């Protein structure tokens, strides 16, 4: 028996569990042991395996051991456990589970929940007497720091748990958590000379060690990783089209396979159908109803633009097994478990291994159940991805999450937050901020620049200035104005949505929200689809779109402005390796040893091989094509759209140095196309040179339009950094002279204050995230070590077709015309 097992708290909890017929999992006991010893760390466990209890019961054991005689009666203990969760919806469930334990143990703890839904009365109550456990979102935690005398709350805090840390890390919400942790830890240290423990709860990611380092940075401890080692069985099955189109075209195959989806839905209790874009999910929902009218009422739609209440209803109906199927987007990736879900269908590439696994994990939720996921391709080549995904799952090739660095916008917001509560002293806070992982490389001069921006507001005309935000009162940095404080409180948070308008029926009733830019292109009388309903635009008034029901057959499905996801590095690599299998097929192995997906595609591959080449993972294939549009150069690095975007621009720039050519560029996740009206001088004498890593940084700067990319990044930064304020409803009229678009602010700062920290951050984010400079460099290095194979096929190849077809989108053809044109091209190629 170890120390823990001898303790009173352990035996109390253990006997409570036994009374319920339960046994702790080894990873739970391990966690309890560390908590008993005051060691911090990360619990790595999949959802539904008791990860909540690993940390929560650990905290209880510790409390019982500290108060063995009176733990049951002891009340008003102050905050003991702070539970940070990214999801409001999770808070209720976790709170309920905790309440149950407390009641059954006959303890006197209270469990509080704090998020955007918490009423003011409840908040006031919590302020008077803090509960022992507070479940809180990162945003609400920052709002907590915006209250006067917040520090007292953390006097006796024992443990901070950060749930779903893998989701938070790598986002600005994660940075918010880092900053809040640094404040809480140092508050306690200055009052009591001790620090609370920090425990993260995380699903598996590629860099769990980094996750631990980031989380524990502010307490300066190494900590431990406790692994649950529960492997979930996952079955992946592809929905194979009856006929393979040798000239695949992105996006149009999916819906054609709908007749194969209906039996899957019928066979299982509840099915989740994941679609990559909101626009396509609207179409799928419509088509499912068209093909299986009997499903009306038993299927639902769930995506980010649907009204909150309706989404809530869908989620509740999922819990109670009232629905046969839900068509959804990433909006259902996270969150509480829906036990009735038996089957998941992924439509189109999931773009990454983790996302695919996460979605698969939405089915078969008890720890020993099997997760079943169907992969439905939206074009035939995506079947290769299915094969690659299966390999990646076998090898557990889970992606890493890169922690964010030096987010000035979040720091500025945080400093304003501290300034509206008790104010802050720069030296103290600088040291704290530097103790986080995100800001550990923050320079003294950057810090001073930020303070200066907050106090003086950048470039000013001294006596003709009215700027007022943070004031320095005897060394204390504080916001005095109640109006500014209120304004800031409303804008705490790092989740920035597009400019959205509410959609309401003329007759009353709220439908959802829609991007302003989409609706601004419509005229009254036009029809569009939202939340599965056909609607006619009546008018736009006061930030609200008024609509009525439409019976029109021709409606426009809104295209939402969410960026297109790009293939991850892991999946890209697996994809290239899968092509080895294709290239070697027919040689060593018997047919049944091959992936069914690849066998199904054999005619397509034969055509590719016959016309050109099938690239192995140590090769880079380049194809020259000629058509009436001009000269096409196709390159297939299989690195994902995002890397291709930068790589194609660099290649175009480098070729441009050989000959004065103008290119039009297209790409998908597999490769990219340079199109020119003159022959493109790339052959085996200069190809290697074009992919050299030499001068890469300089060439990036010269070729990629970083300004446009930075302008797009600047919107989020401007909102988080407080340059754009979101106003409460009803306040809009008053604030109308304070409206300026992010793009306009970007112009003004670029022209009049180019060194502004927020502007610089926009460019840095472009480099790190948009161009993924590190990954780009890796890709160039890899290509440098590969054989470059240059082919000149007689006609378009299966690999090039989807890229060239996608490229047609660039030219201002209407969508109908593109469709006709691609069909004609397909037909023609098949005939030849």
């Amino acid at each position, binding site marked *: 028996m170890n120390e823990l097992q001898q303790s009173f708290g352990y035996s109390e909890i253990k006997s409570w569990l036994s009374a319920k017929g339960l046994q702790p999992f080894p990873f739970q006991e391990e966690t309890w042991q560390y908590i008993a010893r005051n060691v911090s760390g990360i619990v790595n466990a999949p959802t539904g395996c008791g990860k909540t209890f690993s940390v929560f019961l650990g905290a209880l054991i510790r409390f019982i051991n500290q108060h063995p005689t009176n733990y049951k009666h002891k009340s008003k203990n102050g905050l003991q456990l702070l539970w940070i969760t990214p999801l409001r919806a999770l808070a209720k469930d976790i709170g309920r589970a905790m309440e149950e334990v407390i009641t059954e143990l006959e303890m006197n703890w209270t469990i509080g929940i704090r998020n955007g839904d918490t009423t003011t009365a409840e908040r006031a109550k919590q302020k008077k007497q803090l509960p022992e456990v507070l479940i809180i979102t990162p945003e609400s935690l920052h709002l907590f720091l915006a209250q006067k005398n917040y520090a007292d709350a953390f006097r006796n805090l024992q443990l901070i748990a950060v749930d779903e840390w893998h989701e938070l890390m790598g986002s600005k919400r994660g940075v918010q958590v880092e900053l809040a942790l640094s404040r809480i830890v140092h508050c306690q240290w200055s009052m009591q000379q001790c620090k609370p423990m920090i425990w993260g709860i995380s699903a598996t990611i590629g860099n769990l060690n980094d996750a631990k380092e980031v989380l524990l940075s502010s307490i300066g401890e190494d900590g431990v990783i406790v692994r649950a080692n529960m492997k979930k069985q996952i079955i992946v099955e592809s929905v194979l089209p009856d006929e393979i189109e040798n000239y695949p075209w992105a996006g149009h195959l999916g819906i054609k396979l709908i007749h194969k989806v209906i039996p899957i839905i019928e066979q299982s209790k509840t099915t989740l159908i994941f679609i990559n874009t909101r626009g396509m999910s609207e179409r799928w929902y419509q088509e499912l109803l068209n093909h299986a009218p009997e499903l009306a009422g038993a299927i639902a739609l769930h995506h980010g633009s649907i009204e909150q209440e309706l989404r809530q209803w869908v989620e509740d109906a999922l819990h109670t097994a009232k629905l046969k199927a839900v068509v959804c987007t990433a909006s259902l990736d996270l969150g509480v478990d829906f036990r009735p879900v038996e089957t998941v269908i992924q439509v189109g590439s999931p773009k990454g291994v983790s996302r695919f696994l996460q979605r698969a994990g939405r089915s078969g939720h008890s720890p020993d159940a099997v997760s079943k996921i169907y992969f439905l391709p939206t074009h035939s080549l995506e079947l290769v991805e299915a094969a690659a995904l299966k390999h990646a799952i076998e090898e557990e090739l889970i992606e890493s999450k890169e922690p964010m660095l030096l987010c000035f916008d979040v720091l500025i917001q945080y400093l304003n937050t501290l300034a509206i509560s008790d104010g802050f002293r720069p030296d103290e806070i600088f040291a704290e901020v530097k103790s986080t992982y995100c800001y550990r490389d923050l320079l003294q001069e950057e810090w001073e620049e930020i303070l200066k921006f907050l106090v003086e507001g950048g470039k000013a005309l001294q006596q003709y200035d009215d700027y007022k935000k943070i004031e320095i009162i005897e060394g204390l940095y504080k916001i005095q*104005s109640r109006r500014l404080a209120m304004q800031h409180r409303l804008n705490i948070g790092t989740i920035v949505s597009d400019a959205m308008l509410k959609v309401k029926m003329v007759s009353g009733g709220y439908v959802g929200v829609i991007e302003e830019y989409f609706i601004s292109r419509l005229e009254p009388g036009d029809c569009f689809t939202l939340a599965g309903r056909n609607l006619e635009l009546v008018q736009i008034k006061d930030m609200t779109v008024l609509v009525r029901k439409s019976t029109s057959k021709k409606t426009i499905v809104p295209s939402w402005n969410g960026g297109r996801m790009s293939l991850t590095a892991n999946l890209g690599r697996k994809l290239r390796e899968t092509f080895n299998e294709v290239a070697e097929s027919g040689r060593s192995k018997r047919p049944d040893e091959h992936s069914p997906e690849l066998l199904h595609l054999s005619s397509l591959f034969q055509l590719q091989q016959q016309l050109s080449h099938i690239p192995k993972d140590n090769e880079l294939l380049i194809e020259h094509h000629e058509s009436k549009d001009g000269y096409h150069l196709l390159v297939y690095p299989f690195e994902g759209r995002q890397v291709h975007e930068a790589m194609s621009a660099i290649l175009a720039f480098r070729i441009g140095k050989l000959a004065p050519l*103008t290119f039009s560029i297209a790409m998908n996740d597999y490769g990219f196309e340079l199109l020119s009206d003159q022959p493109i001088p790339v052959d085996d004498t200069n190809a290697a040179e074009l992919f050299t890593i030499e001068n890469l940084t300089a060439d990036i700067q010269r070729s990629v339009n970083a300004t446009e990319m930075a302008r797009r990044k600047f919107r989020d930064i401007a909102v988080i950094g407080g340059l754009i304020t979101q106003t409460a409803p009803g306040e809009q009229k008053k604030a109308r002279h304070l409206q300026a678009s992010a793009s306009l602010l970007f112009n*003004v700062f670029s022209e*009049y204050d180019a060194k502004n920290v927020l502007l610089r951050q926009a460019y840095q984010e472009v480099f790190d995230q948009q161009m993924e400079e590190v990954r780009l460099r890796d890709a160039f290095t890899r290509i440098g070590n590969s054989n470059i194979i240059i082919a000149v096929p007689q006609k378009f190849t299966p690999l090039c077709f989807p890229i060239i077809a996608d490229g047609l989108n660039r030219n201002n053809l209407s969508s109908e015309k593109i469709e006709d044109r691609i069909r004609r091209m397909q037909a023609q190629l098949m005939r030849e």
Partner: protein
Amino acid sequence: MQQPTLFKHLQQTLWLSPERCLFWEEEQWLIVSDIHFGKSGHFRKAGIGIPQTVFKEDLHRLVTQIQYFKPKQVIVVGDFFHSHLNNEIKLFEKWRNDLASLPIHLVKGNHDILATDWYAANDITVHETQLVKGPFAFMHELPANETTTSEYIFTGHIHPGIHIAGLGKQSLRFPCFYFAEQYAVLPAFGRFTGLHPIRPKKKDKLFAIAEQRIVEL
């Protein structure tokens, strides 16, 4: 400064300046619209640190245009000032004092909410809805019913911009002068203003302001 571009319209001689204003030679009037003085100050008062250089340079550019064209009077076609009185407008008052002999007319725009006596104190003649001279009428916004006046109307308000699409999804937006059949829209003079894309008809005349030059499209 780049040279202004000559544009003959209804037998009148108009000089389009790349500094986003227009000089009417026959009357010797300098016509500007949507200056939005005090906008950066208004933002700064609300704790939003817009660089005040944008205001300083707007004021400076206006002076330069006045020195260049030497107009008999200046017509502002609305949105002279962005919002309530603030310290930036104090700097304007000082400047106004230095140029006291120059008549300034304002056709009120939706942003011009300063008190009536303030305009009087600063010797700005205010026209509530419009100002008519010769073949032209000046008003901030186009009236709902276009045919109420026989004159050709100069407006501002919308901050017209034109989209020019290039290859490879590139597209650029420029402020512009827009001359339709019965009315014209002037570009916003102030640099802290956005652009509203316009869709010209075939017969319309359009002058984009690209990198300090006037380009007819």
